[in-house]
């Protein structure tokens, strides 16, 4: 198992270097000079432009800039934001727990509902439940996040008043970050009602961010289950007299899980992409909105640093998924 994990880790290295090169190049091939964007309608003189170029280090050859960036990465220094002048590393880890907390909740929500829904649909193939659940999944998958979020806010927060509109916690609660996870920090703070407030703020963004992965997981579970259910060993299991719960839940589901785990792993990328919109709408202080803002401002260190860190996270998640395959299916491990 360890050997398997290490071999996967080894493939990580060229990917990491590739990502470092792409993240550096990506923002630079976009049109738009960060200094001109910063000056806005006002414009700036040639001398001032030259001075700022020098200050940001843009007057140096591109390979020198790249070398600095690369050596910085290995020293754990991703540079400072042009705008806030704070280290990219600090900014990322201030905001990342918010994105992680929301993404984890969203994936738990998606799996908790999507997996049973897929199983129920497969077992009831062609019947009402199947059609109902799969139509629901199709709607969920096709729904624009922006529209869905606003609809939920208007109905659930506005008309019904069941949840707060946006933010991470009620404004009356105020405590230091310990873990960066609001649910945990609110518990640690010991303030009455803080945890409930943090949970209530999580509900709508979790539903919105989890909807697409939920739909994908439900559909994937259904098709994987259908495939497995038609296998000979399932017929054998049934012929042995095993009850439907044991056949579906143990024999079929375990084998159907491999493609589902793949989908869950790939959903992490979708979640981070979806987080951009969800975070903007729900005023959720995570990395999605931070990255979009930095792209518009052409804040090179932030964009390249954030891309690199996000890519590393997605790679780590996929590495974990690979290892999980091995746990679920010993055949993969031995290959």
């Amino acid at each position, binding site marked *: 198992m360890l050997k398997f994990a290490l071999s996967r880790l080894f493939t990580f290295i060229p990917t990491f270097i590739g990502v470092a090169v792409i993240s550096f190049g990506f923002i630079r091939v*976009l*049109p*738009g*000079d*960060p200094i*001109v*964007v*910063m*000056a*806005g*309608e*006002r*414009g*700036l*003189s040639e001398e*001032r432009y030259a*001075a*700022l170029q020098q*200050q940001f280090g843009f007057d140096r050859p591109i390979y020198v800039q790249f070398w600095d960036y690369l050596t910085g990465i290995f020293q754990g220094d991703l540079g400072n934001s042009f*705008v*806030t*002048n*704070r280290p990219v590393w600090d*900014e990322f880890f*201030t*905001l990342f727990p918010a994105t992680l907390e929301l993404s984890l909740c969203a994936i738990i929500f998606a799996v908790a509902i999507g997996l049973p829904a897929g199983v129920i649909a497969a077992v009831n193939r062609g019947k009402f439940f199947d059609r109902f659940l799969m139509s629901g999944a199709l709607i969920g998958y096709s729904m624009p996040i922006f529209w869905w979020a*606003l609809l939920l*806010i*208007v109905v659930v*927060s*506005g008309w019904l*008043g069941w949840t*707060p*509109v*946006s*933010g*991470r916690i009620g*404004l*009356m*609660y*105020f*405590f*230091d*970050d310990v873990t960066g996870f609001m649910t945990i920090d609110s518990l640690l703070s010991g*303030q009455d009602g803080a945890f409930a407030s943090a949970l209530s703020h999580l509900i709508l963004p979790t539903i919105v961010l989890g909807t697409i992965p939920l739909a994908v997981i439900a559909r994937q579970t259904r098709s994987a289950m259908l495939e497995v259910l038609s296998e000979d060993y399932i017929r054998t299991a049934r012929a042995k007299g095993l009850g439907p719960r044991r056949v579906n839940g143990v024999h079929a589901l375990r084998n159907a899980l491999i493609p589902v785990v793949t989908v869950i792993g790939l959903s992490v990328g979708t979640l981070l992409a979806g987080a951009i919109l969800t975070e*903007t*709408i*729900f*005023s959720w*202080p*995570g990395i999605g*909105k*931070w990255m979009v*803002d930095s792209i*518009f401002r*052409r804040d090179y260190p932030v964009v390249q640093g954030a891309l690199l860190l996000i890519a590393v996270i997605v790679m780590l998640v996929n590495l974990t998924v690979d290892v999980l395959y091995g746990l679920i299916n010993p055949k993969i491990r031995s290959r």
Partner: protein
Amino acid sequence: MTKLFTTTALSVLCLAGAASAQTLVYCSEASPEGFDPALYTSGTTFDASSHTVYDHLVEFETGTTNVVPGLAESWEVSEDGMTYTFNLREGVKFHSNDMFTPSRDLTAEDVIYSFQRQIDTEGTWEYFQSMGMGDLIESMEAPDDLTVVFNLTRPEAPFIANMAMDFASIVSAEYAQAMEEAGTPEMVNQQPIGTGPFEFVDYQTDAVIRYAANEDYFVEGVPRVENLVFAITPDASVRYQRLQAGECHVMPYPAPADVEAMQADENIVVMEQEGLNVGYLAYNTQQAPFDNPDVRRALNMAIDKQAIIDVVFQGSGQAATNPIPPTMWSYNESIEDDPYDPEAARQMLADAGVEDLSMRIWAMPVQRPYNPNARRMAELIQEDFSEIGVDVEIVSYEWGEYLERSSAVDRDGAVLLGWTGDNGDPDNFLAVLLGCDGVGASNRAQWCHEPFQELIDEAKTLPTQEERTPLYEEAQVIFKEQAPWATIAHSVVFMPMRPEVENYVVHPLGGHIFHEVGLAE
């Protein structure tokens, strides 16, 4: 230490939470870039720093662009207009935080430091630099603790208004020095110390900024609330929902489509004010046939501005006649706008010998108060121009590219752009956007017209508004005759708020200011 500080602050705010009537919540539209206003140029950052934590030597009177005393009780200008002497208020206290407790009140040293750092130090003191302040200030002196003298390199009437601008916020020299010695100079930008009506308490990145009232503030009874909270809410529809749900008291920048519903809602009060801005279409006056004022005027007469106001601004704008907005002093009311008359326009073009004209119109890729949808605006103008036989191709570039390319002297066609005033001074519009120095940069019409330039140059050297006004009025007449731009619109700014908010005044310069705002019990 941070914990101790925030815990103390926490207890203050928890109390405030209990007595929520004392906490004013403002759903701000974006995150501040930092808290040292001299480093930045965005209004969002100024709201969070310059308008809360800091004061200036002079201030813009709330709701107007008139300059009134601030940290300086009074000031004198020498006869030649080159020396400004400010007399500082006595006993003005700086805030404190867990890293710093001031040992003295505000003195001339702090004022000189606040400007000298922007003259000396390399850095992105972008606003100060772009306003040409580094070249303007020759030297500063402090004859005593409460007097500051600015010696200028030339007479410059807008100087006094510049002193009320955000980059002219007065920071504590003692705090800056302490942080420098502690090896954490960035704290000046992250944990600001000023003399303003609100003390900075805490900033949770991209989420919430908290302030507490400065109990030692030098104006009696100000601020009126105990705590101020900025709840950062980037989406306009969500801000509206939060306002409705009572999660915030005031919100800026409503979506134009929501304004009507807000006005009909009895739980929301919508204030409005004409914005200090102008959206325009700038011809390249150095290229044929736009080098002919008759052609430019003919094109202007073909534009149906009312349709633009209705469609693009959805009513939240007014047609612009002059290059400066009507709320600005010296606005020439006697000037009449070019009538919308396609027939006459077609005739004028024919008289000028222009046939089968094809041109480009540049549409900005971003939304601005002076132009909420440049693409749509360009399409409407394209339609208008096609009626008089002018064929228009619409082009657009990424924002940075757009700004750069549109500045070029040899650029083709006409560019949609605009401007929001910095200091309420007409020079800030007329010289920056239409002066000869701006050709190849901020003067997108590439228009350098000597009679106009002479007027604005002279006006800048005169000390009083009364003396300057007739010159600016005359300059606007020349502008209208020469028509380097089609003046399109000035936006109207809407500020929705809860009915319990008292005494809020919409600031013509666009800032959101809460010193004197209270909440009804």
